[in-house]
């Protein structure tokens, strides 16, 4: 038991690593502030393109969405970070992560919005249009607000996934929470800093998960 505590919950080592971990947490926060809005806005655009009446516009969008949902985000990230320099484009780790997230999580958000917009009955469109609203006005004032409300649990759930996913930025040496923790681990030969990082993730995300679980079960009933 003592060995377990000194290996996983070593207070002394966690204390030493704490400043590093907090700086990492700051970077994780910046990353979230960049990629969550990117995904939310990008996803909405993708959903609107997928709803286009013209097949020539709609189909490429569907193919791209399925494409980016099939490729693991880490593979996409490595491809952008390690592949693009070969043709002379050298994105910084932060930019590479943002591009990968825009493509990957944008596709997931897009699918959620699309399901939401699909769930709004045709009558809503017809009623709004017949009062003299244009298509854009109908979309902005009538359809999207209701659609977003219908898929709110899915949007929150995907956002939790996005926050968790920022941990893969550690693989391209972006000094976010997990990277800092892993660095502290390799300096101290003790996995306690990663356990501390896990606790930080838990403190941040547990309330969201609890809320989600309530939302999901309420909807199911």
């Amino acid at each position, binding site marked *: 038991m003592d*060995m*377990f505590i000194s*290996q*996983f919950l070593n207070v002394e080592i966690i204390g030493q690593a704490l400043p590093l971990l907090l700086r990492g947490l700051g970077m994780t926060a910046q990353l979230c502030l960049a990629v969550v809005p990117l995904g939310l806005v990008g996803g909405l655009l993708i959903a609107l393109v997928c709803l286009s009446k013209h097949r020539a516009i709609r189909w490429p969008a569907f193919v791209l969405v*399925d*494409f980016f*949902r*099939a*490729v*693991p*985000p*880490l*593979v*996409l990230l*490595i*491809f952008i970070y*390690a*592949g*693009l320099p*070969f*043709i*002379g484009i050298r994105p910084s780790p932060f930019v590479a992560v943002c591009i990968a997230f825009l493509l990957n999580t944008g596709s997931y958000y897009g699918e959620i919005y699309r399901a939401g917009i699909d769930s709004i009955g045709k009558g809503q469109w017809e009623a709004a249009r017949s009062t003299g609203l244009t298509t854009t006005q109908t979309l902005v004032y009538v359809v999207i607000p209701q659609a977003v409300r219908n898929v709110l649990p899915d949007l929150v759930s995907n956002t*939790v*996934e996005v926050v*968790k*996913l*920022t*941990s*893969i930025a*550690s*693989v391209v040496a972006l000094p976010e929470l*997990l990277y800092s*923790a*892993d660095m502290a*681990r390799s300096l101290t030969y*003790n*996995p306690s800093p*990663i*356990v501390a*990082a*896990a606790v930080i*993730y*838990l403190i941040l*995300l*547990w309330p*969201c*998960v*609890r809320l*989600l*679980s309530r939302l*999901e*079960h309420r909807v*199911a*009933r």
Partner: protein
Amino acid sequence: MDSTTVFLDAFFNRAVIDKYLPDILWGMIITVEVALAVVATGIALGLLLAAVRSFRVRPINVLIVLFVDVLRALPPLVLILIIYFGLPSVGIRLSGFAVLWLVLSLVLAAFAEEIFWSGILSIRKGQWEAARSTGLTFLQTLTHVILPQAVRMTVPPLTNRTIAITKNTALGAVIGVPEILMQAQTAQSFSGNATPLLLGALAYIVLFVPVVVLGRWLETRFAWGRA
């Protein structure tokens, strides 16, 4: 060299494809092995947990909810690193393959439990009462009446979640599991060329696009279940 030649040479290099395609194919086999193992154990454990939860024994349910919440809140990569680097220091040595399988199975089990439990809750009380009044035991009611109806409804969300989690097999590259991404990265650094990375991405597309399309189809096929 003009820019098209540079591009083709960097991403579609014939010599590199010929040399490293076998490695990528080998990586695909490993990825499929991990993915199938994760799906089998993850979903089975998830279903078991949901079934146990329906007995509504308070202390056990608190533990199940705790397990599910923690695994839903933690990034899988964090768990992988804790187990991979942590267990050896308390004397347990697991291969990268085993760690990847263990972590992803537990994560999938947590999500699957939530989805199955939602399904079980959505079955009306009358179904329980009717089945019990015909003389079925609690367990018989659960396995013959409730679960068959509940599981049916969970197919679309479960498929999507399973795809998302099995794609995380790529995280194995971080702990040296020789799956697609690991093979692609190794080949990229040996060849000094980006073609293997593109091959790796294509390998995932070949494996997962059919599953994504299947998920899309299931969603429309089972849509009535949600009404």
